[in-house]
């Protein structure tokens, strides 16, 4: 397993695509992932909310192989056991999932741990507890995650990005039209579901987002 923790992680978080079968219009996860990676996705998250875990394991094996071959970061959402079984590059947990310290304890030192804080305090605590990156949002209103709550906005993301040393990605309602502002607010990348997974042209949508993110990052460091 490649070690993604450290400097390499920032680069890998530029365009973070999260799978969602309900938005995929019947297209298999693996096909969506292949197209998203061809378009420039740098990280892929397997998010498994319903359906048998045995199936998630099979799909995860295919996604893991695809990501490994493409040099793309492969993350499993919530299920640390699934991440371990798949030897994923990382795992992502939220406030109702396993706590960050316990997650770190299970996955050891080489696996990436991501966390979705709902407050500045949680963000700072997670960094201290060993999280490698934060997913902050919803930045813009979103319908993908009914449990995600109201949009927290760019200022909230900026506040967290200033308070922690680990990289922050914005999530929630991000499209090519509004992604630049997320980077300007301090994110190292954007996480998307519907903007890529739900697109007619997955590859084109990923490429467009990646271009916006790359340009905004270049602008910020200029």
């Amino acid at each position, binding site marked *: 397993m490649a070690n993604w923790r450290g400097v390499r992680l920032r680069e890998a978080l530029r365009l973070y695509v999260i799978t969602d079968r309900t938005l995929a219009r019947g297209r298999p996860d693996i096909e969506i992932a292949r197209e998203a990676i061809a378009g420039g996705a740098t990280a892929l998250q397997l998010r498994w909310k319903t359906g*048998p875990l*045995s199936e998630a394991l099979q799909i995860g094996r295919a996604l893991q192989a695809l990501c490994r071959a493409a040099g793309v970061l492969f993350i499993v959402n919530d299920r*640390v*056991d699934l991440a371990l*079984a798949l030897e994923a590059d990382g795992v992502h947990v939220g406030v*109702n999932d*396993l706590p960050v310290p316990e997650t770190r304890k299970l996955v050891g030192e080489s696996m990436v741990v991501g966390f979705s804080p709902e407050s500045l305090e949680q963000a700072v605590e997670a960094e201290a507890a060993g999280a490698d990156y934060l997913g902050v949002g919803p930045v813009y209103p979103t319908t993908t995650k009914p449990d995600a709550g109201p949009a927290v906005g760019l200022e909230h993301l900026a506040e967290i990005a200033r308070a922690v040393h680990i990289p922050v990605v914005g999530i929630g309602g991000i499209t090519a039209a509004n992604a630049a502002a997320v980077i300007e607010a301090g994110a190292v990348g954007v996480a998307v579901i519907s903007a890529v997974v739900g697109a007619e042209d997955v590859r084109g949508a990923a490429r467009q987002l990646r271009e916006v993110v790359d340009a905004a990052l270049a602008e910020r460091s200029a």
Partner: protein
Amino acid sequence: MRVPRLHLVTDPEVCPFDRLLALLPDLVAAGVDAVHVRARDRGAGELLAVAQVARRAIVPPAVLLVNDRVDVALLSEADGVQLPERGLPPEDVRRLLGRGRLVGCSVHSVSAAERAARAGADFLLFGNVYETASKPGRAAAGLEALQAVARAVPRPVVAIGGITPERVPAVLAAGARGVAVIRGILAAADPVAAVHAFRAALDRVGGA
């Protein structure tokens, strides 16, 4: 490894976690020998918190099993897991858990039971044998189906679904090693008395 005979399966819809945790020491003392903690649609964080408290109440020879989540089982130092029929495969789970832990698989057919047994399950949970409020609208599998599973696999079978102390002799006669209960204990007016009744029924027939 010794397979428990009286399994208590938790369900926060039937008995909230705080009440369950308060009851557990008495239920274990009364003769429950396996407790399955389940989150249903709660988060893993809550399940872990429950499993960690349950761990302190569940003393040998009783065992703590975590439903579905191997990560929670590892963190709570549970004695094993109870896997859904289409959960993580037992081979992968065994690799994650290490040796000396109990791996149970829920099955609903002979073919699923054979698959789970081949994959290394220590015991199988088969049901629902009778109609049960826990699986509304799902027809009872019946004693014959239980018997078919028990005959087909060289592993102990634990029966679940609408089991009462009165039904224990028939269930054991069909080949079950033990029984698993949710409402029969947790929705009983006196849960401890219910455990005594199940225990007496199981022990009357003796360890199969």
